[in-house]
């Protein structure tokens, strides 16, 4: 069985959800993205966003956290079935990232992944590359974020 067989093309899975507190939004933004609408409730109310909202990079960092947690659950299930979990490598990057709506303080975002391709690398056959389409939706069912990303998997 190839390591890539564990990635089912086209299947959309919910990888987890996360509530963005005002404190966490401000803490992230003070370090990395201190624009007024990410660090100051009052300034955010008067901005075009109308309320304190998370840095877009905070939203995607939380996706990564959920992505890893999901990976651990998947690996535990594979082990329980007597299968060997895939060995994941680094990621080459992301593309088509869209911040479609603000993530406001106290919003709960549900994240989803869909595997779009899984193939052996031509130039480095010890590794495969798995491509994902990832999405996040808020508690009203509105999509807030989507992007394409990829990760290497040891063959």
């Amino acid at each position: 069985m190839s390591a890539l067989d564990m990635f089912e093309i086209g299947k959309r899975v919910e990888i987890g959800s996360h509530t963005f507190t005002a404190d966490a939004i401000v803490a992230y933004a003070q370090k990395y993205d201190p624009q007024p609408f990410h660090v100051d409730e009052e300034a955010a109310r008067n901005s075009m966003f109308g309320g304190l909202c998370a840095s877009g990079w905070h939203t995607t960092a939380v996706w990564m956290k959920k992505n890893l947690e999901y990976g651990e659950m998947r690996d535990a299930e594979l082990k329980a079935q007597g299968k060997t979990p895939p060995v994941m490598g680094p990621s080459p990057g992301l593309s088509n990232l869209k911040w479609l709506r603000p993530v406001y303080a106290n919003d709960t975002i549900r994240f989803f992944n869909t595997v779009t391709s899984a193939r052996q690398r031509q130039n480095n056959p010890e590794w495969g590359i798995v491509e994902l389409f990832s999405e996040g939706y808020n508690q009203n069912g509105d999509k807030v974020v989507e992007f394409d990303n990829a990760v290497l998997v040891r063959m």
Partner: protein
Amino acid sequence: MSTQAVALKKYALEDFTPGREFELGPYPVSADEIIEFASEFDPQPMHLDEEAGKASILGGLSASGWHICAMMMRMLIDGYILDSTSQGAPGVEYCNWKRPVLAGDTLHGKSTVLSSRSLKSRPGIGAVEFSHELFNQRGELVCTSANTGFFASRDKGERK
């Protein structure tokens, strides 16, 4: 954004002319910061532990790609965004992590304006497309990215 608020900023939509470059950094990357970020968002061994990093194909304690994005954002903030009429960004066309960023590296780079246009749907606001490049202290390219940001116009059509 009020006319007074716009007037206080160094960079408005009109200042992002195609070809204009903005220096980014320097940004020293500490082991503590790599571990702190990874502990919260990307707790994989090569981002948490020097020995595990050395054993990985990244070759040392290395920053999460999402941490590289965060540091790039901070460099954009300090380079021009915070002193601009920024109205947020709708997204990022791409961000490629070309080389590991290791503890002790110092990042620098530049943003280049690719294009600028007014938005018909949002009077007084325009979309500016940038490319960004980050390098380490050896001049090696570690990250390339392109994104669009929204900026308020200085003139709002009232005067030229």
